[in-house]
């Protein structure tokens, strides 16, 4: 595997190998030697054409724990914001010797364009492209669900996961539907009809407009961030109404299964899609997702860049 552009690039065994490697690396990170020498001398570029502090620092932390050199190249003030083409940026990074480029971009398919252009020899890792995919987020979500909910299996067989909110514009949802299903879970998408794409019937997921009928039947619920623009774009009438029908408040929280968990990719809009009680409850694994994100991203970098090299811990 050279690039990670889409979950569709992965087989089930690739996905499990990322999760298993992440577990090994997580154990190592909890030990006395946080930093591993694995990617010493390798250069990793964070090419962030769209703001995302969380994902950027998560990848940065992951790369640094593997001893790689990290160059941050972010939107504001960069040549990309001055209209430089992706091609020229790629060729520049190639000339500077980038072994991997982690790209975040507001255009769906930008990571594909960067990789398929053959403008550079390094790996391309999609850190979120428009409303298309966010593979590392899905992998960290799967990692978190497996840790808390797996029924004695290596995969997610037998589990049911709800993804709630703006599915139409969500790259997290697109990656998760494919990955969680591949790993054996059943996914149910919960949203008002305006926030579900035409064509969603082709996805390997159930669809529901009624959060209350679903909340008590799932092992994990992933709450998506609700963008304020969606109200002015008339996808929903207003925030109050959204919150009432699709928000995770304490009443809904109380109806969840005994060991079910609450997840959110962040950043949260407390009081809109999720109440403070839910975000801070014992069921919430939202902060742990951030921690797991570093381990999973270490695994991705390790597997793409170090390949078959034995993991020395």
């Amino acid at each position, binding site marked *: 595997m050279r690039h990670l552009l889409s979950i569709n690039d992965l087989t089930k065994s690739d996905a499990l190998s990322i999760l298993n490697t992440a577990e090994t690396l997580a154990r190592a990170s909890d030990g006395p030697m946080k930093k591993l020498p694995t990617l010493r001398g390798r250069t990793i570029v964070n090419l962030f054409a769209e703001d995302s502090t969380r994902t950027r620092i998560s990848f940065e932390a992951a790369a640094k724990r593997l001893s790689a050199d990290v160059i941050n190249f972010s939107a504001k003030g960069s040549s990309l914001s001055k209209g430089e083409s992706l091609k020229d940026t790629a060729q520049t990074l190639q000339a500077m010797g980038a072994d991997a480029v982690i790209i975040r971009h507001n*255009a769906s*398919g930008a990571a594909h364009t960067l990789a*398929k252009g053959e403008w550079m020899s390094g790996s391309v890792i999609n850190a979120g492209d428009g409303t298309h*995919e966010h593979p590392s987020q899905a992998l960290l979500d799967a990692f978190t669900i497996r840790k808390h909910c797996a029924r004695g299996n290596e995969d997610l067989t037998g589990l049911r996961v709800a993804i709630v909110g703006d599915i139409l514009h969500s790259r997290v949802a697109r990656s998760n539907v494919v990955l969680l299903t591949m790993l054996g879970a059943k996914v149910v998408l919960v949203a008002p009809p305006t926030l579900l794409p035409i064509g969603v019937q082709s996805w390997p997921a159930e669809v529901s407009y009624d959060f209350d009928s679903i909340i008590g039947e799932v092992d994990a619920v992933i709450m998506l961030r609700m963008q304020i623009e969606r109200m002015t774009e008339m996808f929903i009438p207003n925030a109050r109404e959204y919150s009432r029908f699709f928000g995770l408040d304490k009443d809904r929280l109380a109806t969840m299964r005994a060991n079910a968990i609450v997840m959110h990719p962040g950043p949260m809009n407390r009081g809109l899609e999720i109440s403070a009680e839910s975000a801070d409850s014992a069921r919430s694994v939202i902060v742990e997702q951030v921690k797991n994100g570093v381990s999973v991203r270490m695994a991705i970098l390790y597997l793409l860049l170090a390949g078959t090299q034995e993991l020395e811990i």
Partner: protein
Amino acid sequence: MGEKLFIKNGTLANGSQADISISDGVITSMNTMPSAPEGARVIDAKECIVLPGLVDLHTHLREPGKESAETVLSGSLAAAKGGYVAVSAMANTTPVADNASVVEHVYRLGQNAGIVDVFPVGAVTQGLAGENLADIGAMANSDARVRVFSDDGNCVSDALVMRHALEYVKGFDGVIAQHAQEPRLTHGAQMNEGIVSSQLGLKGWPAIAEEAIIARDILLADFLQARLHICHVTTAGGVEIIRWAKARGISVTAEVTPHHLLLTDELARSYDAVYKVNPPLRTEKDVMALREGLAEGIIDIVATDHAPHATETKECEWQQASFGMLGLETALSIVNQTMVQTGLMNWELVAARMSSAPAKIGRYESHGHELAVGAKAHITVINPTATHRVDRDLVLSRSRNTPFHGLELPGVVMATVFGGRLTYEGGK
């Protein structure tokens, strides 16, 4: 002029054999002859179909304004290579062809190139802005004698503006060629809205955004007893609505592009912007409905919507890329593959859909006539069984955004004769 040509051993669209003698721009004989007339240049049309010269009603030649992508000359050469003898230069140039001086300029560039007849299309509204009517009468009355008006690239979305445009051009037998795209339903749209767009996260362009305008304009054309032409129909629903209109005798004509006869939205999965086009590639079901509609005559013509774009506007993120594809050089091969080889159309229908019907819609009186003694010699010779591999580096267009790159297509244009002159000779 003065050149003598002899096209021997060809098969006409109706299946009969003929040797065609041409002199001083006119067909002088269609009798089989044992040998070529003296001094005539011989074109061997053995195993070839000899058609009336092709006419394109929808072409972007980019001049003036984007000469890096195409010029009237380069577009004319590409047209001749595709078997065309006439093209219709769309109005969305810089400056816009919304007044007599721009259309006359483009018309003269075409005359000077002398490879095909270039008929300028006039804008419907000033600056293609959809608000105020352009100098329609002045363009009609100019040396370019404009009869086709279109804001192509933009839809004339305001119902009142469209009403007045349809009515106004009745005064000189003009036609409004509508780019049917409801703007509010397609704001920021990137590709057909459906299964593929849902998976790719690209903003959808629903079929109904096209169909709603087609339906509205058909009702307007009926009410006003005016002539309406629908550019590049792409949906099964659009074909249905036009079928309904024709059954009621409403004066509507429609076109389909070669790419919409062959390609589907599945190609967008590559995120290769060469497949980004307006209107977008649709589904297999739509492709099949378009083919049936074309065979049946619900869709009257094939028009290329040849849309050259400089490399840098395609070699980028999909959502940043320009809309459009090349079409002139491959149109006849695509029609051969999708319509003739599938048994949906014979060569007589090809001649109707690609020569006589477009000439009639555009009121291009010197074009689209059956090959006959005394007729102007506009002729296309195609070898339908020979194949060629499309190579974007070998196109005559100044741009290379062909979606057919690498495809092996059936049908090689062997000769194009424009007004008795050989403007393209292929198969060498």
